[in-house]
């Protein structure tokens, strides 16, 4: 221990040299990462680089090896699912629902970790769910069937369910994919609000590098399941780094109004 080193704040989530394999195919390799309370972190990288798996490992949706995934300083494997669900919410990319549940019923499912086996949702649970729907502007279709609303509305309902879970950390897998610009901004603004007003820690996988730089405090760049670089957007969004990871040449333009970065792929000539 160096006496001159600053006391580092305690991490909320941590991966320590984590590995994960699907059918012996390594997806995450020797991955170390700390997420601190109140951070807004973006995970970026090409398709199939392991972004979704990384989020699932952090949330304990996929079982990591022993002594490699931590929440609040404790090995995730040793914590009860229900207790964990009171602290971490995970929003998947797609939400296929087989049966005709109403949007409000889907949001109320977020209260599951707080209810004993045979209990019904209390007035308080309903109040919390209703507030989550107000926050995500989904109240107007509370009584519509989840299967019959648009994909942007579904995504917002799933975020409302995650908010109703009252977690300390939210993990989101491409929450804005397949949405138009307005819905993308709406969802990211909701997350920013959760982060700013309630101190929720946000970790999300994102394809859009510009939006990532606009909203995230810190970016985590991964390729082939390995950490390439992490840090503030200005550090990670470097021409040479992106060239290594995405295998294309890009121009990086700084938007002075908000400090975000526009990443523009360079047109390639027919002979290149």
């Amino acid at each position, binding site marked *: 221990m160096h006496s001159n080193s600053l006391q580092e704040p305690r991490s909320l989530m941590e991966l320590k040299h984590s590995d994960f394999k699907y059918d012996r195919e390594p997806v995450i390799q020797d991955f170390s990462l700390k997420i601190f309370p109140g951070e807004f972190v973006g995970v970026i990288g090409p398709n199939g680089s392991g972004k979704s798996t990384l989020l699932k490992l952090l949330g304990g949706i996929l079982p990591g090896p022993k002594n490699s995934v931590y929440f609040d300083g404790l090995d995730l494997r040793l914590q009860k*699912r229900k207790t964990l669900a009171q602290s971490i919410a995970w929003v*998947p990319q797609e*939400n296929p629902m087989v*049966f005709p549940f109403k949007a409000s019923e889907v949001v109320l499912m977020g209260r599951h970790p707080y209810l004993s086996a045979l209990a*019904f949702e209390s007035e308080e649970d309903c109040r919390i769910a209703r507030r989550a729907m107000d926050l995500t502007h989904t109240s107007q279709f509370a009584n519509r069937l989840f299967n019959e609303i648009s994909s942007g509305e579904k995504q917002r309902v799933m975020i409302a369910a995650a908010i109703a*879970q009252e977690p300390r950390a939210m993990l989101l897998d491409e929450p804005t994919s397949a949405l138009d610009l307005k819905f993308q901004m709406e969802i990211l603004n909701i997350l920013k609000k959760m982060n700013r007003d309630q101190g929720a820690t946000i970790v999300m996988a994102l394809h859009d590098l510009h939006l990532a730089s606009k909203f995230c405090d810190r970016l985590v760049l991964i390729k082939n399941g390995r950490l390439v670089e992490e840090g503030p957007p200005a550090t990670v969004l470097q021409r040479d780094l992106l060239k290594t990871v995405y295998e294309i040449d890009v121009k990086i333009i700084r938007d002075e109004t908000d400090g975000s970065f526009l990443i523009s792929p360079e047109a390639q000539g027919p002979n290149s």
Partner: protein
Amino acid sequence: MTFNFMNKKRYLTVVGLFFVLLVATLAVAPMIGSTKIDFSRAFSNQIPFADNVDANILFIVRLPRILLAALTGAALAVAGAVFQAVLRNDLAAPITLGVSGGAALGAVIAIRLGWAFTFLGFSSVPVFAFLGAMTALAVVFSLVRVRHRELPTSYLLLAGVTVNFFFASMVMMIHYLSNITQSFQIVRWLMGGLDITDYQTLISIAPLVFGGISVIIYLARDLNLLSAGAEPAMSRGVDVVKTQLAGLLAAALITAVVVAVTGPIGFVGLIVPHIVRLMIGPDHRLLIPSAMFFGASFMIFCDTLARTLLAPTEIPVGVITALIGGPFFFWLLKKQQSS
């Protein structure tokens, strides 16, 4: 904005109504039959029971049969609802998972071999049918690999249907090689029926059916989340593997137990959960107990028709369940879509 949610009041109203339906069915069904019975005579303690024809018909012929119908309907409907939730598929049911085919093969083997023994109050045919049903499920589930807790539904159903066909062919072969007496017994069993019943059988199967259904009721809210995906359920604190295992085992047990006694009665396990879902929505806390009462009432209703429509000839009850249930289901489906 009305925020519809589950509470005790809604639960008691909905489940209470289905319970009343079952009580009414249970009360009316014994009065109907090919022979008219005099209830004042049946309950009279002046006449010795052995000489009391009305009491004999009521207590020995009709009542156990009606109670078996209730147990069978309840078990099949609840099992179907669980299979559909855990496999997240509308077509999951005892038949499409091979359970019925397995039970049939077991029963046919017992009849062909002519083995006669009793085990825990069951004769050889139901014991073999039970073993067959469990074997079929084991085969179906061993064929698929569970990847990260998400059951590969389409493979399971494909495997189930294949196992059912395979077993059906073996049933046909054994049937072909049987003598005329065995052949008649086999046909009779395969048609499914509630007629061969005594109280001993009821006492043997009732605790298993109620035990299985209790486990499932305990899992009801977990099933809601599971039906929305294994991983999302996990992120909300559901112990996914435990719920899948407990749910499937309980559903398989209650199915195998009743199918072993009654023979394969199609349709109830597939359609009753859908009918009830169309009436009251997909929440399993309501759906499971409601499907239990509705399944029981539906089965008693169908069996009453089966034994009276062409009296004194009986129609196999499986024919009635499909003939009544099919159009009723279409009607509900159409009504649902137009609203």
